[in-house]
């Protein structure tokens, strides 16, 4: 029987900020974007959660719930450093570590648990070591179970800073008392459809014939049938087997000063520049350009366009994205979010080299700019037309860079 640990850092970004600044400890704080950007709560401290504040809530809503709330701007460098350090600790125990997100990790300790006095003792030892390494305020909860699905359910019972185990003999009771919407992957719409079929919890799901689920939900029906039995169809993918990136992109909430069409255009160019740079730094080229714009009414518009040949050229990405903007009626009067992504990526070596002299000249120029930025940092060079975008955070890759963190960890392993 497998023993899977799911390690989830408690109120991660907020507790890292409280660790860094003792004056914030014991205070209701939220980590969010800048105040001049329409922003959401990225993480709420335990104290803020007692006021009903949750991640994903808008900042004005959070302030309404707790007027003396402290807003702390996010610092992705801090969180990435801490994630790398807790991974260093975890790989001491087993190489079977899956980086699920910046603050969540799965570990398969089937082989190792006995050596540490059992899974519970191992979980408590990991908690102790993480506290000693990262600091008293950065705590984690650990769920132990025979599958990833159940470990994720177990961790919810363990919060905050606890350990909860679901033994194989407890699985039927757990399935019977777990509502379907508690499963990561079953959203409100699917839950509503299931409720119309008389399925309210996982045990109901397990009683439903798989053929019927397949007929209703297609391939997803087979996944639902497995979840109903407490099984997880996705195997644990250790960080050293992490798949290659499928796409590279950036998106950013637009500050008030840049929301007019001209400002939004420069944000788009800035994001295309950063996307091209990231593609080149990873030796990749992509063929499909995706665009996403959001207006002041929170309506999204955008689309995608396939190129004839894969590219890592920011100018081609930008011109394609701009064509997409034009084909959707131009920039909204007030653009509140811009996103660009290049998908269908392949190795840059497989992509054809530019033929036209102008394209070659641009390729040389981009490589020269890359060299300068590699040496002196991202802000060493700015195009005049995007200089206004220097107010945007550099961390436009967002917090979901777990694949890159896993790949960096692979590189560290190779070096050592």
């Amino acid at each position, binding site marked *: 029987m497998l023993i899977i640990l799911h390690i989830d850092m408690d109120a991660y970004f907020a507790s890292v900020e409280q660790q860094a*600044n003792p004056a914030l400890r014991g205070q209701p704080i939220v980590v969010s974007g800048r105040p001049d950007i329409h922003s959401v709560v990225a993480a709420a401290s335990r104290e803020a959660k007692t006021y009903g504040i949750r991640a994903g809530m808008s900042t004005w809503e959070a302030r309404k719930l707790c007027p003396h709330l402290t807003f702390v701007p996010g610092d992705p*460098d801090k969180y990435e450093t801490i994630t790398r350090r807790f991974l260093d600790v975890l790989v001491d125990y087993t190489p079977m570590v899956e980086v699920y997100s910046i603050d969540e990790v799965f570990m398969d300790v089937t082989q190792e648990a006995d050596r540490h006095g059992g899974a519970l003792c191992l979980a408590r030892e990991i908690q102790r070591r993480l506290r000693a390494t990262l600091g008293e305020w950065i705590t984690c909860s650990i769920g132990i179970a025979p599958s990833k699905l159940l470990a994720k359910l177990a961790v919810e019972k363990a919060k905050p800073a606890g350990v909860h185990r679901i033994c194989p003999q407890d699985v039927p009771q757990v399935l019977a008392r777990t509502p379907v919407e508690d499963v990561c992957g079953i959203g409100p719409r699917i839950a509503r459809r299931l409720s119309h079929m008389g399925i309210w919890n996982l045990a109901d799901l397990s009683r439903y014939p798989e053929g019927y689920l397949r007929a209703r939900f297609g391939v997803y029906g087979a996944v639902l049938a497995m979840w109903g039995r407490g099984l997880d169809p996705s195997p644990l993918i250790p960080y050293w087997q992490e798949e290659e990136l499928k796409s590279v992109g950036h998106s950013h909430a637009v500050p008030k000063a840049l929301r007019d069409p001209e400002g939004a255009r420069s944000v788009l160019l800035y994001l295309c520049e950063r996307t091209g740079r990231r593609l080149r730094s990873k030796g990749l080229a992509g063929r499909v350009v995706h665009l996403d714009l959001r207006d002041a009414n929170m309506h999204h518009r955008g689309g995608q366009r396939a190129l004839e040949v894969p590219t890592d050229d920011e100018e081609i990405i930008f011109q394609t994205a701009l064509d997409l903007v034009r084909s959707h009626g131009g920039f909204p009067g007030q653009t509140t979010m811009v996103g660009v992504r290049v998908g269908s990526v392949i190795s840059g070596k497989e992509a054809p080299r530019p033929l036209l002299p102008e394209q070659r000249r641009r390729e040389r120029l981009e490589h020269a700019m890359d060299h300068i930025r590699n040496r002196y940092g991202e802000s060493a060079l700015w195009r005049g037309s995007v200089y206004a975008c220097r107010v945007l955070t550099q961390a436009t890759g967002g917090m979901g860079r777990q694949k890159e963190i896993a790949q960096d960890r692979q590189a560290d392993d190779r070096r050592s």
Partner: protein
Amino acid sequence: MLHPVDDPVDVEALFPARAPYPTPLRLRWQGRPFPVEDIHLIHERWEGSTRLLFYSVTAGGSLLRLRFDGTKVRWFVEGVQWEVEC
């Protein structure tokens, strides 16, 4: 909140053989000595080929954010918050 500054500072630090980061012990800033009482958090950031280390420390009862530039082997005070209450 931290009050931003960018002052070079003299720091007496330990470079332990098996630890990933140097440990600041004492610093002299604006002519005054400050013993480093507690290191709360260390994080890093790459600026091009330069690795910068950031230390959130309590020194002389105040919260300081220190920056260590490993390429130039120089320390800076980046931010200060006087009289930290723990």
